[in-house]
């Protein structure tokens, strides 16, 4: 019976081409819009995640602090047994390890100065970082100068400095002494402040000597994983090994004040709660934690997309219902004839439902194909020349990643709504009396 139903419904869909194309087209449009929104936001989230991890130098970030007898806290990891063991145990999942120091010094050029976050990095091991920086002045080709500094453009503008010039850095050592260093600006980079990072980069060894750390000391150990999906698992594993409590999630800190929330989410020490401790106190943060606010924003966008999608679907549904009512009237005689020849009511209904299903499925498929084409074409355009967009892009290109789950969900929604829209006209058609077939008027 399903064969007869399919045959008749498929031909019925085909017989009113214009009408079918309009309905399927409306469905296709809805499918296209929702998939494009999902794909674009999905791609953007992925790219932000990758770019973040490159800029921050990893997927999992471990920092440590020591409590000195005089009551000062020093952020420093001298090689630590526990950390090394944990690294070894998770060796398989770790693609690369970078070590960084950081400081918040004043940068001085002539009579101007500015406070600036500075990362001390090992440039030889930071290809990913160097690759992710968008250079607006100078060059990153040669990073061998021990005293080089890479400056965000906005800071350079504030200082009035250009690539090739020398600036001073004034900072406090871990023991509280003033110290000054000299740096050559080799490159200016696009500011990433908007996304939470606006950092200058210098050599770790030189920064360490300036802040009074050992040459091989570091403040943060960052891990690139072989599989980014493992970030949470690895974070957990390191927390367990290093005795760090599991952090709270964004949703769990809604009611806390900012300081409390940051403490709960990222394990920051609250100024009011400092108690002395022994050895190194670790803090383990994953890229996923950092991405949480971004994902929350993107999810809000996706929700809006879904709302638009559903509104479009409801409008289309009304169209389908009306069309099928019309179809029922048009085909009264035909339905009567089929009933006279022994077609059961349920089969009449199913022919209608199958038509709706075919229209919906065709529309959904067309929408997906349109999405695929749009993604392919837009993905080929290079936006290299628009620095502000780089953080959302993958090497200057827009990427689309609509998940299989989302596509399945949206398709199911379309099919369900198509069936629902046709259900009542289909039931009415099934109730038509075969007497109608006998009536002589055409």
């Amino acid at each position, binding site marked *: 019976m399903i064969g007869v139903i399919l045959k008749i419904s498929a*031909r019925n869909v085909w*017989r009113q081409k214009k009408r079918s194309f309009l309905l399927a087209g409306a469905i296709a449009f809805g499918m296209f819009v929702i998939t494009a929104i999902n794909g674009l936001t999905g791609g953007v989230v992925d790219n932000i995640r990758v770019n973040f991890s490159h800029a921050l130098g990893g997927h999992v970030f471990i920092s440590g602090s020591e409590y000195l007898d005089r009551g000062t806290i020093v952020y420093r990891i001298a090689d630590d047994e526990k950390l090394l063991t944990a690294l070894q145990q998770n060796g398989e999942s770790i693609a690369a390890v970078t070590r960084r120091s950081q400081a918040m010094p004043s940068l001085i050029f002539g009579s101007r100065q500015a406070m600036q976050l500075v990362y001390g990095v090992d440039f030889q091991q930071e290809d990913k970082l160097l690759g992710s920086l968008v250079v607006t002045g100078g060059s990153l080709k040669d990073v061998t100068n021990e005293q080089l500094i890479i400056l965000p453009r906005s800071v350079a503008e504030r200082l009035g400095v250009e690539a090739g010039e020398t600036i001073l850095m004034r900072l406090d050592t871990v023991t509280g002494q003033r110290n000054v260093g000299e740096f050559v600006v080799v490159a200016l980079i696009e500011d990433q402040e908007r996304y939470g990072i606006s950092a200058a980069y210098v050599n770790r060894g030189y920064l360490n000597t300036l802040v009074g750390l050992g040459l091989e000391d570091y403040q943060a150990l960052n891990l690139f994983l072989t599989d980014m999906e493992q970030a949470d698992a690895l974070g957990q594993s390191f927390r367990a090994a290093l005795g760090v409590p599991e952090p709270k999630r964004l949703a769990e800190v809604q009611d806390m004040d900012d300081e409390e929330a940051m403490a709960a989410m990222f394990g920051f020490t609250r100024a009011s709660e400092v108690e002395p401790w022994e050895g190194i106190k670790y803090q383990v943060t994953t890229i996923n934690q950092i991405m949480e606010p971004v994902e929350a924003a993107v999810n809000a966008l996706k929700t809006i997309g879904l709302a638009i999608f559903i509104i479009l679907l409801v409008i289309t549904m009304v169209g389908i219902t009306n069309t099928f009512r019309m179809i029922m009237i048009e085909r009264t005689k035909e339905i009567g004839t089929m009933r*006279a020849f022994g077609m059961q009511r349920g089969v009449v209904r199913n022919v209608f439902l199958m038509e709706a299903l075919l229209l919906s499925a065709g529309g959904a498929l067309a929408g997906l194909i349109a999405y695929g084409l749009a993604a392919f074409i837009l993905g080929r355009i290079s936006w290299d020349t628009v620095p502000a967009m780089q953080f959302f892009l993958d090497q200057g290109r827009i990427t689309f990643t609509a998940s299989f789950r989302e596509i399945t969900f949206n398709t199911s929604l379309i099919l369900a709504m198509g069936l629902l829209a046709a259900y009542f006209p289909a039931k009415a058609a099934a109730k038509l009396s075969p007497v109608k077939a*006998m009536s002589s008027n055409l």
Partner: protein
Amino acid sequence: MAIIELADVHKIYTLGKTEVHAVKGVSFEIASGEFASIIGPSGSGKSTILNLIGCIDQPNSGVVRINGTATSGMSDRQLTTLRHQTLGFIFQSFNLIPVLNVYENIEFPLLLGKTSVPKGEVRDWISYLIEQVGLHDHIHHRPNELSGGQRQRVAIARALVTRPAIVLADEPTANLDSKTGQSILELMKKMNAELNTTFIFSTHDSSIVGLTDHVIRLLDGTIVEEVYQKADRDTEAMS
């Protein structure tokens, strides 16, 4: 034995407040294999009676028996199955399914039931019918590519495809010119003789009763005359 039996059948249509007494106590029997006609002017109740026999409408009172079984009290599902198994229909305005071609239109009633017949046999049977109604050159045509006479030939083949005991035809010639109409009746008559299927058709044209075995003349919802006659079985006259 009577394959169709109507006993004191009444049919009243209600249109708002007015009632139309379309069939007023009609009784008759039709024997298996008959080529019977119901004749009467417009509004005399021909279609109503055929609908009652065809199990697509129910009488207000009286009994309709098909093959000895009363149809009253049957569910829609049972009536539909009964129609599928024992009845074939030919309509005044052909009523072919527009999306199906000639072959598919004829095949269509077979698809509505469970068939245990092998595919090859089905194909041979349909080809035989197509041959009989003279449409072997139009197998793949859609209804809108056929003339009225050709469409009605398709309808005849379709009505016969399930090998029904009874074929009902409500004014099968009314939409055709008289020459084509004549040939359609002759075709029906031929199939009646060939397959021994009971045919009942209605018409308001008294000039064609010569072909039939059994004439029921209606006026105003009652039988005014019923005649059994030795029909003109001269098959040579049909070409």
